[in-house]
């Protein structure tokens, strides 16, 4: 690992100033579970690493009735341990549990997960189906970007140097819903998703579907959602919805799975996820966190 300079500012303003000064040559550090590996591999060689763990306001995890605020410093295990996340944002809770292993989740953060923007980011589908908003601190104040517009490609986002995601806020749902996140991996602990699917079903027959690991970036399947709107989930409807949903994805072959397998199994999993979400809506589904594959 090349050497670098290290700063641990205690305010966002200070962090932005340093980031502005170094621009592309600086990298932000929170959990480090991605950054340190990339630096060690020589993929990244920043001149300056800005450790954000000294900024108190980023540690906030709070539900104010309208939004769940997930600060940039909130780790996956803190999300998993939060009763309000489990109760009101169960798909985020379920997805958080699938991230790597507990020793990684004690450091890795949800905000770091989306900022790394790998196509397989486990937190992304859950945030996509919940219509999350990314709050970005800049030198000219905050700006907000819907999660659907946040990712721009593999490891790419709308962020530019000098901009720091301070939190993700997730709107509360009014009304009953059921949801699920299914991650297909080769084994438990550490493995990245071959396919990840999140869905939400509401009592008004409103549907949301999102994928990770099967396109250059995590995506919503808007067309399938439109098709499903107002319909009952009969076998025929599910079949058709799955066909439309996979039009939203464009998987590649890699060490974890072939393109053909991903395409096929995405259709299978979207049906399974919709069924699980529907049964959870009706209170007779598997408990959140239970194995769905």
């Amino acid at each position, binding site marked *: *690992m*090349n*050497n*670098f*300079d*290290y700063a*641990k500012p205690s305010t966002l303003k200070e962090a932005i100033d340093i980031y502005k000064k170094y621009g592309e040559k600086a990298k932000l*550090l929170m959990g*480090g*579970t991605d950054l*340190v*590996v990339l*630096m*060690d591999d020589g993929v990244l060689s920043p001149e300056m*690493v800005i*450790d954000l*763990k000294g900024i108190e306001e980023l540690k906030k995890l709070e539900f104010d009735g309208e939004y769940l605020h997930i600060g940039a410093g909130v780790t996956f*295990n803190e999300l998993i341990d939060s009763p309000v996340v489990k109760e009101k944002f169960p798909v985020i809770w379920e997805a958080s549990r699938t991230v*790597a*292993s*507990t*020793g*990684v989740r*004690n*450091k890795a953060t949800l905000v770091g997960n989306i900022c790394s923007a790998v196509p397989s980011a486990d937190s992304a589908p859950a945030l996509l189906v919940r219509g999350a908003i990314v709050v970005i601190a800049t030198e000219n104040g905050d700006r907000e970007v819907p999660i659907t517009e946040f990712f721009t490609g593999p490891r790419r986002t709308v962020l530019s140097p000098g901009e720091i995601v301070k939190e993700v806020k997730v709107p509360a749902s009014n009304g009953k819903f059921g949801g699920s996140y299914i991650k297909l991996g080769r084994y*438990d*602990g*550490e493995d990245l998703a071959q396919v990840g699917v999140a869905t939400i079903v509401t009592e008004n027959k409103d549907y949301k579907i999102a994928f990770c690991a099967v396109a250059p970036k995590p995506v919503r399947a808007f067309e399938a959602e439109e098709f499903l709107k107002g319909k009952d989930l009969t076998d025929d409807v599910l079949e058709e919805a799955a066909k439309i949903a996979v039009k939203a994805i464009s998987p590649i072959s890699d060490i974890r799975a072939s393109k053909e397998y991903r395409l096929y199994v995405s259709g299978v999993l979207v049906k399974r996820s919709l069924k699980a979400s529907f049964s959870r809506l009706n209170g007779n589904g598997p408990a959140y966190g239970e194995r769905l594959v």
Partner: protein
Amino acid sequence: MKREIKFTLNGDPVKIEVMPNEKLLDVLRDRLGVKSPKHGCGRGECGACTVLLNGKSIRSCITLAIEVDGQEITTLEGLEKNGMTELQKSFLQHNSFQCGFCAPGMTLTATELLKKNPHPDEEEIREAIAGNLCRCTGYKNIIDAIVDVSKKG
């Protein structure tokens, strides 16, 4: 570019100069002589390098030493300062390990689990140690040992 950091290691204060790019695992092993954390994969995937940071298990191979300035680190050496823990005795009784390379990480991870949840079921135990790879044993005797402890107390 060297920086002085101070942290608590197994209950004792430590002061050491580090470069920002030095990893906690290397500082512990090569500079402080604490050898229980092992270098397995070096990229966060095997759990051999597990240490506790303020009581929580982390991967010391992907943690910068400078990050733990002002924090508390516990390794196996600290855990057994006052003799073997119940969990370690149970591992012994069950012949849980063969080469032992995974044992420090496994022990710390299971210790964290039992502290948070003293009576985990087998599924919870498997989930907790899912990120700690053992290439010798097939895990059965490891899990049995933790199950035994979970039934006590």
